[in-house]
Protein backbone atom coordinates (compact mmCIF):
# COMPACT_ATOMS: atom_id res chain seq x y z
CA UNK A 1 0.00 0.00 0.00
CA UNK A 2 1.11 3.51 -0.79
CA UNK A 3 2.53 5.72 1.90
CA UNK A 4 -0.07 8.36 2.41
CA UNK A 5 1.02 11.48 4.24
CA UNK A 6 -0.30 11.65 7.77
CA UNK A 7 -2.02 14.98 7.24
CA UNK A 8 -4.08 13.77 4.28
CA UNK A 9 -4.96 10.58 6.04
CA UNK A 10 -6.12 12.55 9.00
CA UNK A 11 -8.27 14.87 6.92
CA UNK A 12 -9.85 11.91 5.25
CA UNK A 13 -10.48 10.21 8.56
CA UNK A 14 -12.00 13.33 10.02
CA UNK A 15 -14.41 13.63 7.14
CA UNK A 16 -15.36 10.03 7.41
CA UNK A 17 -15.72 10.20 11.19
CA UNK A 18 -17.92 13.23 10.92
CA UNK A 19 -20.12 11.57 8.37
CA UNK A 20 -20.46 8.39 10.38
CA UNK A 21 -20.63 10.06 13.77
CA UNK A 22 -17.80 8.00 15.27
CA UNK A 23 -14.56 9.14 16.95
CA UNK A 24 -11.78 10.16 14.62
CA UNK A 25 -9.21 7.92 16.27
CA UNK A 26 -11.30 4.86 15.55
CA UNK A 27 -11.55 5.64 11.83
CA UNK A 28 -7.90 6.50 11.66
CA UNK A 29 -6.89 3.22 13.22
CA UNK A 30 -9.06 1.38 10.78
CA UNK A 31 -7.61 3.23 7.80
CA UNK A 32 -4.15 2.34 8.88
CA UNK A 33 -5.28 -1.25 9.14
CA UNK A 34 -4.70 -1.35 12.87
CA UNK A 35 -8.22 -1.36 14.25
CA UNK A 36 -11.45 -3.17 13.62
CA UNK A 37 -13.82 -2.05 10.95
CA UNK A 38 -15.97 0.81 11.98
CA UNK A 39 -19.45 -0.06 13.08
CA UNK A 40 -21.75 2.44 11.57
CA UNK A 41 -24.58 3.43 13.84
CA UNK A 42 -27.81 3.21 11.94
CA UNK A 43 -29.43 6.56 11.20
CA UNK A 44 -27.19 8.57 13.48
CA UNK A 45 -29.01 11.86 13.09
CA UNK A 46 -32.56 12.74 12.39
CA UNK A 47 -31.28 15.64 10.35
CA UNK A 48 -33.40 16.36 7.27
CA UNK A 49 -30.23 16.88 5.15
CA UNK A 50 -27.73 14.20 6.03
CA UNK A 51 -24.32 14.68 4.55
CA UNK A 52 -23.38 12.20 1.89
CA UNK A 53 -21.75 8.94 2.85
CA UNK A 54 -18.03 8.25 2.62
CA UNK A 55 -16.52 6.78 -0.48
CA UNK A 56 -13.80 4.23 -0.27
CA UNK A 57 -12.03 3.47 -3.48
CA UNK A 58 -8.95 1.40 -3.86
CA UNK A 59 -7.65 2.58 -0.55
CA UNK A 60 -9.20 0.31 2.04
CA UNK A 61 -8.88 -3.45 1.78
CA UNK A 62 -11.91 -5.24 0.31
CA UNK A 63 -12.71 -7.12 3.52
CA UNK A 64 -12.99 -3.90 5.45
CA UNK A 65 -15.25 -2.50 2.77
CA UNK A 66 -17.55 -5.47 3.09
CA UNK A 67 -17.45 -5.47 6.84
CA UNK A 68 -18.55 -1.94 7.21
CA UNK A 69 -22.09 -1.32 6.28
CA UNK A 70 -21.88 1.47 3.81
CA UNK A 71 -25.15 3.29 3.73
CA UNK A 72 -26.78 4.34 0.50
CA UNK A 73 -24.46 2.65 -2.00
CA UNK A 74 -26.37 4.14 -4.91
CA UNK A 75 -25.33 7.65 -4.02
CA UNK A 76 -21.75 6.49 -3.87
CA UNK A 77 -21.91 5.10 -7.36
CA UNK A 78 -23.17 8.39 -8.68
CA UNK A 79 -20.45 10.43 -7.15
CA UNK A 80 -17.45 8.33 -7.79
CA UNK A 81 -16.80 9.19 -11.47
CA UNK A 82 -16.90 12.90 -10.81
CA UNK A 83 -14.46 12.54 -8.00
CA UNK A 84 -11.82 10.78 -10.07
CA UNK A 85 -11.51 13.76 -12.36
CA UNK A 86 -9.44 15.74 -9.90
CA UNK A 87 -5.72 15.33 -10.21
CA UNK A 88 -2.71 17.07 -8.81
CA UNK A 89 -1.58 19.49 -11.46
CA UNK A 90 1.99 20.15 -12.33
CA UNK A 91 2.67 23.83 -11.79
CA UNK A 92 5.30 23.75 -14.56
CA UNK A 93 2.96 22.33 -17.17
CA UNK A 94 1.45 25.67 -18.09
CA UNK A 95 4.88 27.11 -18.84
CA UNK A 96 6.09 24.42 -21.18
CA UNK A 97 4.18 25.68 -24.16
CA UNK A 98 5.02 22.51 -26.03
CA UNK A 99 1.60 20.96 -25.71
CA UNK A 100 2.94 18.13 -23.58
CA UNK A 101 1.45 17.71 -20.18
CA UNK A 102 4.45 16.92 -18.12
CA UNK A 103 4.36 14.69 -15.13
CA UNK A 104 5.65 15.89 -11.84
CA UNK A 105 8.53 13.87 -10.64
CA UNK A 106 8.51 15.42 -7.20
CA UNK A 107 7.60 13.29 -4.24
CA UNK A 108 4.70 15.36 -3.11
CA UNK A 109 2.74 14.41 -6.20
CA UNK A 110 2.72 10.76 -5.31
CA UNK A 111 -0.69 11.24 -3.83
CA UNK A 112 -3.69 12.93 -5.29
CA UNK A 113 -6.72 13.86 -3.30
CA UNK A 114 -10.03 12.84 -4.67
CA UNK A 115 -12.44 15.59 -4.03
CA UNK A 116 -16.13 15.41 -4.49
CA UNK A 117 -17.19 18.47 -6.44
CA UNK A 118 -20.44 18.71 -4.61
CA UNK A 119 -22.27 16.77 -1.99
CA UNK A 120 -25.30 14.96 -3.24
CA UNK A 121 -27.40 17.09 -0.96
CA UNK A 122 -26.22 20.59 -0.15
CA UNK A 123 -25.51 21.04 3.55
CA UNK A 124 -27.96 23.16 5.36
CA UNK A 125 -27.19 26.73 6.14
CA UNK A 126 -25.52 27.46 2.79
CA UNK A 127 -27.09 29.89 0.36
CA UNK A 128 -28.51 28.67 -2.92
CA UNK A 129 -25.85 27.93 -5.56
CA UNK A 130 -22.91 27.74 -3.15
CA UNK A 131 -20.94 24.54 -3.51
CA UNK A 132 -18.59 23.09 -1.02
CA UNK A 133 -15.89 20.53 -1.51
CA UNK A 134 -15.19 17.59 0.67
CA UNK A 135 -12.28 15.26 0.77
CA UNK A 136 -13.54 11.81 -0.04
CA UNK A 137 -10.45 9.71 -0.13
CA UNK A 138 -6.79 9.64 -1.03
CA UNK A 139 -5.38 7.56 -3.88
CA UNK A 140 -1.99 7.05 -5.41
CA UNK A 141 -1.34 9.80 -7.97
CA UNK A 142 0.41 7.61 -10.55
CA UNK A 143 -2.76 5.69 -11.16
CA UNK A 144 -4.68 8.60 -12.64
CA UNK A 145 -1.90 10.73 -14.05
CA UNK A 146 -0.75 10.31 -17.61
CA UNK A 147 2.95 11.04 -17.55
CA UNK A 148 4.12 11.74 -21.10
CA UNK A 149 7.50 13.41 -20.71
CA UNK A 150 10.10 13.97 -18.09
CA UNK A 151 10.43 17.62 -17.11
CA UNK A 152 13.33 19.52 -18.63
CA UNK A 153 15.57 21.92 -16.85
CA UNK A 154 14.33 25.11 -18.49
CA UNK A 155 14.97 28.78 -17.93
CA UNK A 156 13.43 31.98 -19.25
CA UNK A 157 14.52 33.17 -22.68
CA UNK A 158 14.34 36.69 -21.31
CA UNK A 159 16.64 37.64 -19.69
CA UNK A 160 19.04 34.70 -19.77
CA UNK A 161 19.33 33.80 -23.48
CA UNK A 162 18.63 37.26 -24.85
CA UNK A 163 21.32 38.93 -22.79
CA UNK A 164 23.88 36.46 -24.15
CA UNK A 165 22.66 37.11 -27.68
CA UNK A 166 22.90 40.83 -27.10
CA UNK A 167 26.45 40.42 -25.81
CA UNK A 168 27.40 38.41 -28.90
CA UNK A 169 25.82 41.09 -31.10
CA UNK A 170 27.83 43.84 -29.40
CA UNK A 171 31.06 41.87 -29.63
CA UNK A 172 30.50 41.19 -33.34
CA UNK A 173 29.67 44.86 -34.01
CA UNK A 174 32.84 45.91 -32.23
CA UNK A 175 34.88 43.46 -34.29
CA UNK A 176 33.31 44.74 -37.53
CA UNK A 177 33.97 48.38 -36.69
CA UNK A 178 37.56 47.69 -35.71
CA UNK A 179 38.18 45.66 -38.86
CA UNK A 180 36.56 48.32 -41.03
CA UNK A 181 38.74 51.04 -39.53
CA UNK A 182 41.98 49.07 -39.64
CA UNK A 183 41.76 47.16 -42.93
CA UNK A 184 40.70 48.89 -46.11
CA UNK A 185 38.86 47.11 -48.87
CA UNK A 186 40.89 46.67 -52.02
CA UNK A 187 40.13 48.64 -55.15
CA UNK A 188 42.54 47.91 -57.99
CA UNK A 189 42.58 49.35 -61.50
CA UNK A 190 39.26 49.48 -63.38
CA UNK A 191 38.15 46.21 -64.94
CA UNK A 192 39.98 45.54 -68.19
CA UNK A 193 39.10 42.55 -70.35
CA UNK A 194 42.42 42.78 -72.18
CA UNK A 195 44.73 42.66 -69.17
CA UNK A 196 44.63 39.37 -67.32
CA UNK A 197 46.35 39.82 -63.98
CA UNK A 198 49.00 37.28 -63.05
CA UNK A 199 48.03 35.35 -61.00
CA UNK A 200 44.22 35.38 -61.25
CA UNK A 201 42.74 34.04 -58.07
CA UNK A 202 39.14 33.21 -57.14
CA UNK A 203 37.68 34.57 -53.88
CA UNK A 204 39.31 32.83 -50.92
CA UNK A 205 36.42 30.46 -50.21
CA UNK A 206 36.82 29.03 -53.73
CA UNK A 207 40.62 29.01 -53.63
CA UNK A 208 40.71 25.48 -52.23
CA UNK A 209 38.76 24.39 -55.31
CA UNK A 210 41.04 26.31 -57.62
CA UNK A 211 43.94 24.59 -55.91
CA UNK A 212 42.32 21.20 -56.56
CA UNK A 213 41.85 22.18 -60.22
CA UNK A 214 45.60 22.64 -60.54
CA UNK A 215 46.17 19.02 -59.49
CA UNK A 216 43.33 17.16 -61.10
CA UNK A 217 41.44 17.02 -64.32
CA UNK A 218 38.79 19.76 -64.24
CA UNK A 219 36.11 17.11 -64.66
CA UNK A 220 37.08 15.80 -61.24
CA UNK A 221 37.99 18.95 -59.36
CA UNK A 222 35.32 21.12 -60.95
CA UNK A 223 32.49 18.64 -60.80
CA UNK A 224 32.90 15.58 -58.71
CA UNK A 225 34.37 17.29 -55.67
CA UNK A 226 32.18 20.37 -55.31
CA UNK A 227 28.83 19.14 -56.57
CA UNK A 228 28.78 15.48 -55.70
CA UNK A 229 30.87 15.46 -52.54
CA UNK A 230 30.26 19.04 -51.50
CA UNK A 231 26.58 19.54 -52.02
CA UNK A 232 24.81 16.24 -52.45
CA UNK A 233 27.20 14.40 -50.16
CA UNK A 234 26.79 16.93 -47.38
CA UNK A 235 23.02 16.91 -47.69
CA UNK A 236 23.06 13.14 -47.34
CA UNK A 237 25.18 13.04 -44.19
CA UNK A 238 22.22 12.56 -41.80
CA UNK A 239 20.94 9.69 -43.93
CA UNK A 240 24.32 7.97 -44.31
CA UNK A 241 25.33 8.27 -40.67
CA UNK A 242 22.77 5.96 -39.05
CA UNK A 243 24.55 5.86 -35.72
CA UNK A 244 22.00 7.27 -33.26
CA UNK A 245 24.50 8.28 -30.61
CA UNK A 246 25.73 11.84 -30.26
CA UNK A 247 28.44 11.00 -27.79
CA UNK A 248 31.89 11.79 -29.23
CA UNK A 249 33.28 8.49 -27.98
CA UNK A 250 30.69 6.62 -30.09
CA UNK A 251 31.36 8.65 -33.23
CA UNK A 252 35.11 8.44 -33.61
CA UNK A 253 34.95 7.58 -37.31
CA UNK A 254 32.51 10.37 -38.23
CA UNK A 255 34.54 12.91 -36.28
CA UNK A 256 37.73 11.71 -37.92
CA UNK A 257 36.24 12.04 -41.41
CA UNK A 258 34.94 15.53 -40.79
CA UNK A 259 38.20 16.62 -39.23
CA UNK A 260 40.07 15.36 -42.30
CA UNK A 261 37.66 17.37 -44.46
CA UNK A 262 38.27 20.55 -42.44
CA UNK A 263 42.03 20.07 -42.30
CA UNK A 264 42.13 19.29 -46.03
CA UNK A 265 40.09 22.28 -47.13
CA UNK A 266 41.98 24.57 -44.76
CA UNK A 267 45.31 23.35 -46.13
CA UNK A 268 44.23 23.76 -49.75
CA UNK A 269 42.86 27.24 -49.05
CA UNK A 270 45.99 28.36 -47.23
CA UNK A 271 48.18 27.06 -50.06
CA UNK A 272 45.98 28.87 -52.55
CA UNK A 273 46.06 32.12 -50.60
CA UNK A 274 49.69 32.26 -49.51
CA UNK A 275 51.76 29.83 -51.56
CA UNK A 276 50.62 30.52 -55.12
CA UNK A 277 52.32 33.24 -57.11
CA UNK A 278 52.86 34.15 -60.74
CA UNK A 279 51.17 31.75 -63.12
CA UNK A 280 49.57 30.10 -60.08
CA UNK A 281 52.95 28.44 -59.52
CA UNK A 282 54.17 27.48 -56.11
CA UNK A 283 55.86 30.36 -54.29
CA UNK A 284 57.02 31.25 -50.82
CA UNK A 285 55.33 34.24 -49.23
CA UNK A 286 58.51 35.31 -47.42
CA UNK A 287 60.56 35.19 -50.64
CA UNK A 288 58.18 36.10 -53.46
CA UNK A 289 55.55 38.10 -51.56
CA UNK A 290 51.86 37.42 -51.02
CA UNK A 291 49.52 37.38 -53.97
CA UNK A 292 46.25 37.95 -52.18
CA UNK A 293 44.64 41.23 -53.09
CA UNK A 294 41.78 40.99 -50.59
CA UNK A 295 44.15 41.82 -47.78
CA UNK A 296 46.66 43.76 -49.87
CA UNK A 297 46.10 46.95 -47.93
CA UNK A 298 46.80 45.20 -44.69
CA UNK A 299 49.67 43.01 -45.78
CA UNK A 300 51.68 45.81 -47.43
CA UNK A 301 53.09 47.50 -44.41
CA UNK A 302 56.01 49.17 -46.14
Amino acid at each position, binding site marked *: MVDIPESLLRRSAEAKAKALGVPVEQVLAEMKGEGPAVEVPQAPEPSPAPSSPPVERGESPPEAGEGSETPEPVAVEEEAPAAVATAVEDPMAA*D*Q*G*DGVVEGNGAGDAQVAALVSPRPSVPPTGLPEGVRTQRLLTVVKARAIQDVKAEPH*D*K*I*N*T*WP*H*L*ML*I*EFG*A*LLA*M*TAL*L*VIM*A*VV*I*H*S*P*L*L*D*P*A*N*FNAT*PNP*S*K*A*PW*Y*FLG*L*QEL*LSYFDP*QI*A*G*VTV*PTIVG*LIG*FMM*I*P*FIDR*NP*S*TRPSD*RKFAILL*YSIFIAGSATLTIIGVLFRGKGFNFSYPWKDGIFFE*DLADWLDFE
Partner: protein
Amino acid sequence: MANGNGRTGLKDRIKETNDKLWNSQVVGAILRPGSPFKQGYSDSPRNRSYVVMNNVLYHLHPVKVKRHAVKLSYTLCLGGLSFFLFIHLTITGIFLMFYYTPTAELAYVDIQALSTDIAFGSLVRNMHRWGAHLMVLSVFLHMSRVFYHGAYKPPREFNWVIGVVLLLLTLLLSFSGYLLPWDQLALWAVTVGTNMAGFVPVIGDQVKFALVAGVQVSAATLLRFYVLHVLAFPFIIVIFMAVHFWRVRKDGGISGPL
Protein backbone atom coordinates in the same frame (compact mmCIF):
# COMPACT_ATOMS: atom_id res chain seq x y z
CA MET B 1 -4.53 66.71 -8.65
CA ALA B 2 -4.56 70.36 -7.85
CA ASN B 3 -1.58 72.20 -6.53
CA GLY B 4 -1.56 74.81 -3.78
CA ASN B 5 -3.38 77.41 -5.95
CA GLY B 6 -6.23 75.09 -6.66
CA ARG B 7 -5.14 74.81 -10.29
CA THR B 8 -3.81 71.88 -12.25
CA GLY B 9 -0.02 72.06 -12.43
CA LEU B 10 2.07 71.41 -15.52
CA LYS B 11 3.44 68.20 -14.05
CA ASP B 12 -0.04 66.81 -13.57
CA ARG B 13 -1.07 67.83 -17.05
CA ILE B 14 1.90 66.02 -18.54
CA LYS B 15 1.08 62.97 -16.52
CA GLU B 16 -2.55 63.14 -17.57
CA THR B 17 -1.65 63.49 -21.25
CA ASN B 18 0.83 60.69 -20.92
CA ASP B 19 -1.75 58.39 -19.34
CA LYS B 20 -4.27 59.29 -22.03
CA LEU B 21 -1.74 58.51 -24.74
CA TRP B 22 -0.78 55.13 -23.34
CA ASN B 23 -4.39 54.17 -22.74
CA SER B 24 -5.52 55.34 -26.16
CA GLN B 25 -6.93 52.94 -28.69
CA VAL B 26 -4.02 53.48 -31.05
CA VAL B 27 -1.40 52.42 -28.54
CA GLY B 28 -3.69 49.64 -27.38
CA ALA B 29 -3.88 48.39 -30.95
CA ILE B 30 -0.11 48.47 -31.42
CA LEU B 31 0.93 46.83 -28.16
CA ARG B 32 -0.39 43.48 -27.09
CA PRO B 33 -2.31 43.34 -23.79
CA GLY B 34 0.08 43.05 -20.90
CA SER B 35 3.01 44.34 -22.95
CA PRO B 36 5.81 45.49 -20.66
CA PHE B 37 6.11 48.65 -22.78
CA LYS B 38 2.64 49.61 -21.63
CA GLN B 39 2.62 48.35 -18.10
CA GLY B 40 6.18 49.01 -17.10
CA TYR B 41 8.61 46.22 -16.42
CA SER B 42 9.27 44.78 -13.04
CA ASP B 43 11.10 41.51 -12.78
CA SER B 44 8.65 38.66 -12.33
CA PRO B 45 8.20 35.31 -14.04
CA ARG B 46 5.05 36.67 -15.65
CA ASN B 47 6.81 39.70 -17.11
CA ARG B 48 9.74 37.57 -18.24
CA SER B 49 7.31 35.55 -20.29
CA TYR B 50 5.55 38.65 -21.60
CA VAL B 51 8.78 40.12 -22.96
CA VAL B 52 8.97 37.23 -25.41
CA MET B 53 5.31 36.38 -25.79
CA ASN B 54 3.87 39.83 -26.51
CA ASN B 55 6.38 40.44 -29.18
CA VAL B 56 7.42 39.44 -32.66
CA LEU B 57 10.26 37.75 -30.80
CA TYR B 58 7.86 34.91 -30.14
CA HIS B 59 8.41 33.88 -33.74
CA LEU B 60 12.07 33.22 -32.99
CA HIS B 61 12.22 32.12 -29.38
CA PRO B 62 10.01 30.13 -27.06
CA VAL B 63 9.32 31.59 -23.63
CA LYS B 64 11.63 29.08 -22.04
CA VAL B 65 14.69 27.30 -23.31
CA LYS B 66 16.69 24.40 -22.00
CA ARG B 67 19.28 25.49 -19.51
CA HIS B 68 22.20 24.01 -21.39
CA ALA B 69 21.13 25.75 -24.62
CA VAL B 70 22.19 29.14 -23.30
CA LYS B 71 25.64 27.96 -22.39
CA LEU B 72 27.91 29.93 -24.66
CA SER B 73 30.16 26.92 -25.00
CA TYR B 74 27.44 24.86 -26.67
CA THR B 75 26.43 26.77 -29.81
CA LEU B 76 29.15 29.42 -29.55
CA CYS B 77 26.31 31.60 -30.81
CA LEU B 78 27.46 30.79 -34.33
CA GLY B 79 24.04 30.34 -35.92
CA GLY B 80 22.82 33.49 -34.24
CA LEU B 81 25.92 35.37 -35.37
CA SER B 82 25.42 34.19 -38.95
CA PHE B 83 21.92 35.61 -38.78
CA PHE B 84 23.14 38.83 -37.20
CA LEU B 85 25.78 39.22 -39.90
CA PHE B 86 23.09 38.78 -42.53
CA ILE B 87 21.08 41.61 -40.97
CA HIS B 88 24.20 43.74 -40.69
CA LEU B 89 24.93 43.12 -44.38
CA THR B 90 21.39 44.08 -45.33
CA ILE B 91 21.64 47.39 -43.49
CA THR B 92 25.08 48.37 -44.78
CA GLY B 93 24.09 47.07 -48.23
CA ILE B 94 21.09 49.40 -48.38
CA PHE B 95 23.43 52.30 -47.61
CA LEU B 96 25.78 51.26 -50.42
CA MET B 97 22.91 50.92 -52.89
CA PHE B 98 22.18 54.64 -52.62
CA TYR B 99 25.57 55.44 -54.14
CA TYR B 100 26.11 52.59 -56.59
CA THR B 101 25.12 52.25 -60.25
CA PRO B 102 25.43 48.78 -61.79
CA THR B 103 26.83 49.79 -65.16
CA ALA B 104 30.29 49.18 -66.57
CA GLU B 105 30.84 52.95 -66.92
CA LEU B 106 29.77 54.00 -63.44
CA ALA B 107 30.30 51.07 -61.06
CA TYR B 108 34.02 51.60 -60.55
CA VAL B 109 33.71 55.39 -60.26
CA ASP B 110 30.94 55.01 -57.70
CA ILE B 111 32.99 52.70 -55.53
CA GLN B 112 35.90 55.10 -55.80
CA ALA B 113 33.66 57.94 -54.66
CA LEU B 114 32.38 55.82 -51.80
CA SER B 115 35.92 55.20 -50.63
CA THR B 116 36.95 58.84 -50.78
CA ASP B 117 34.13 61.41 -51.02
CA ILE B 118 31.06 60.15 -49.28
CA ALA B 119 30.64 60.57 -45.53
CA PHE B 120 31.19 57.19 -43.84
CA GLY B 121 31.34 55.66 -47.31
CA SER B 122 34.67 53.99 -46.73
CA LEU B 123 33.69 52.74 -43.27
CA VAL B 124 30.40 51.27 -44.48
CA ARG B 125 32.00 49.69 -47.54
CA ASN B 126 34.67 48.09 -45.37
CA MET B 127 32.09 46.86 -42.86
CA HIS B 128 30.03 45.36 -45.66
CA ARG B 129 33.03 43.63 -47.18
CA TRP B 130 34.49 42.20 -43.97
CA GLY B 131 31.02 41.33 -42.73
CA ALA B 132 30.53 39.23 -45.86
CA HIS B 133 33.80 37.37 -45.34
CA LEU B 134 32.98 36.82 -41.68
CA MET B 135 29.56 35.46 -42.58
CA VAL B 136 31.05 32.81 -44.86
CA LEU B 137 33.38 31.90 -42.01
CA SER B 138 30.72 31.85 -39.30
CA VAL B 139 28.29 29.79 -41.38
CA PHE B 140 31.06 27.28 -42.04
CA LEU B 141 31.98 27.15 -38.35
CA HIS B 142 28.30 26.82 -37.41
CA MET B 143 28.04 23.83 -39.71
CA SER B 144 31.12 22.31 -38.12
CA ARG B 145 29.82 22.74 -34.59
CA VAL B 146 26.51 21.13 -35.66
CA PHE B 147 28.44 18.23 -37.10
CA TYR B 148 30.63 17.70 -34.05
CA HIS B 149 27.54 17.69 -31.82
CA GLY B 150 25.84 15.18 -34.08
CA ALA B 151 22.98 17.67 -34.06
CA TYR B 152 21.92 16.60 -37.57
CA LYS B 153 20.62 13.28 -36.28
CA PRO B 154 16.88 12.58 -36.10
CA PRO B 155 14.70 14.57 -35.85
CA ARG B 156 16.99 17.25 -37.24
CA GLU B 157 18.03 15.65 -40.58
CA PHE B 158 15.94 17.99 -42.66
CA ASN B 159 17.27 21.07 -40.94
CA TRP B 160 20.76 19.98 -41.87
CA VAL B 161 19.66 19.74 -45.53
CA ILE B 162 18.19 23.25 -45.30
CA GLY B 163 21.50 24.29 -43.74
CA VAL B 164 23.51 23.03 -46.72
CA VAL B 165 21.27 25.11 -48.99
CA LEU B 166 21.93 28.09 -46.70
CA LEU B 167 25.67 27.53 -47.01
CA LEU B 168 25.41 27.43 -50.80
CA LEU B 169 23.32 30.62 -50.82
CA THR B 170 25.78 32.35 -48.51
CA LEU B 171 28.62 31.51 -50.90
CA LEU B 172 26.56 32.69 -53.87
CA LEU B 173 25.72 35.96 -52.12
CA SER B 174 29.34 36.60 -51.32
CA PHE B 175 30.50 35.62 -54.79
CA SER B 176 27.92 37.74 -56.63
CA GLY B 177 28.90 40.76 -54.53
CA TYR B 178 32.55 40.22 -55.36
CA LEU B 179 32.06 41.43 -58.94
CA LEU B 180 30.32 44.69 -58.14
CA PRO B 181 33.37 46.99 -57.61
CA TRP B 182 34.19 46.21 -61.25
CA ASP B 183 37.93 46.45 -60.79
CA GLN B 184 40.59 44.01 -61.95
CA LEU B 185 40.31 41.92 -58.77
CA ALA B 186 36.53 41.61 -59.14
CA LEU B 187 36.53 40.90 -62.85
CA TRP B 188 39.16 38.17 -62.85
CA ALA B 189 38.17 36.46 -59.61
CA VAL B 190 34.67 36.09 -60.99
CA THR B 191 36.06 34.95 -64.33
CA VAL B 192 38.03 32.22 -62.60
CA GLY B 193 35.03 31.30 -60.42
CA THR B 194 32.50 31.10 -63.25
CA ASN B 195 34.96 29.12 -65.38
CA MET B 196 34.90 26.49 -62.65
CA ALA B 197 31.10 26.37 -62.95
CA GLY B 198 31.56 25.69 -66.64
CA PHE B 199 33.35 22.42 -65.89
CA VAL B 200 30.15 20.86 -64.55
CA PRO B 201 29.16 18.23 -67.12
CA VAL B 202 25.87 18.30 -69.02
CA ILE B 203 24.45 21.44 -67.37
CA GLY B 204 27.76 23.25 -66.81
CA ASP B 205 27.62 25.48 -69.86
CA GLN B 206 23.97 26.33 -69.29
CA VAL B 207 24.59 27.22 -65.64
CA LYS B 208 27.48 29.43 -66.62
CA PHE B 209 25.47 31.07 -69.40
CA ALA B 210 22.64 31.90 -67.01
CA LEU B 211 25.01 33.15 -64.34
CA VAL B 212 27.17 35.47 -66.44
CA ALA B 213 24.46 36.43 -68.95
CA GLY B 214 26.52 35.29 -71.92
CA VAL B 215 29.38 33.06 -72.89
CA GLN B 216 31.99 35.12 -71.07
CA VAL B 217 31.95 37.62 -68.24
CA SER B 218 30.94 40.95 -69.77
CA ALA B 219 29.23 44.21 -68.96
CA ALA B 220 25.93 42.31 -68.98
CA THR B 221 27.24 40.11 -66.17
CA LEU B 222 27.47 43.14 -63.91
CA LEU B 223 23.74 43.85 -64.05
CA ARG B 224 22.94 40.16 -63.66
CA PHE B 225 25.13 39.79 -60.59
CA TYR B 226 23.79 43.02 -59.15
CA VAL B 227 20.17 41.90 -59.32
CA LEU B 228 21.07 38.47 -57.98
CA HIS B 229 23.10 40.03 -55.17
CA VAL B 230 20.70 42.70 -53.93
CA LEU B 231 17.39 40.99 -54.62
CA ALA B 232 17.20 37.38 -55.74
CA PHE B 233 19.64 35.65 -53.38
CA PRO B 234 18.62 37.65 -50.27
CA PHE B 235 14.99 36.86 -51.02
CA ILE B 236 15.67 33.15 -51.32
CA ILE B 237 17.97 32.97 -48.30
CA VAL B 238 15.41 34.72 -46.10
CA ILE B 239 12.85 32.08 -46.98
CA PHE B 240 15.26 29.27 -46.18
CA MET B 241 16.31 30.96 -42.95
CA ALA B 242 12.68 31.22 -41.89
CA VAL B 243 12.22 27.50 -42.44
CA HIS B 244 15.54 26.82 -40.69
CA PHE B 245 14.59 28.75 -37.54
CA TRP B 246 11.11 27.28 -37.53
CA ARG B 247 12.54 23.78 -37.69
CA VAL B 248 15.00 24.47 -34.88
CA ARG B 249 11.98 25.06 -32.63
CA LYS B 250 9.76 22.34 -34.04
CA ASP B 251 12.52 19.78 -33.69
CA GLY B 252 12.49 20.45 -29.95
CA GLY B 253 14.90 23.33 -29.65
CA ILE B 254 18.65 23.02 -29.58
CA SER B 255 19.87 19.44 -29.45
CA GLY B 256 20.74 17.96 -26.09
CA PRO B 257 24.10 18.02 -24.34
CA LEU B 258 26.63 15.40 -25.38
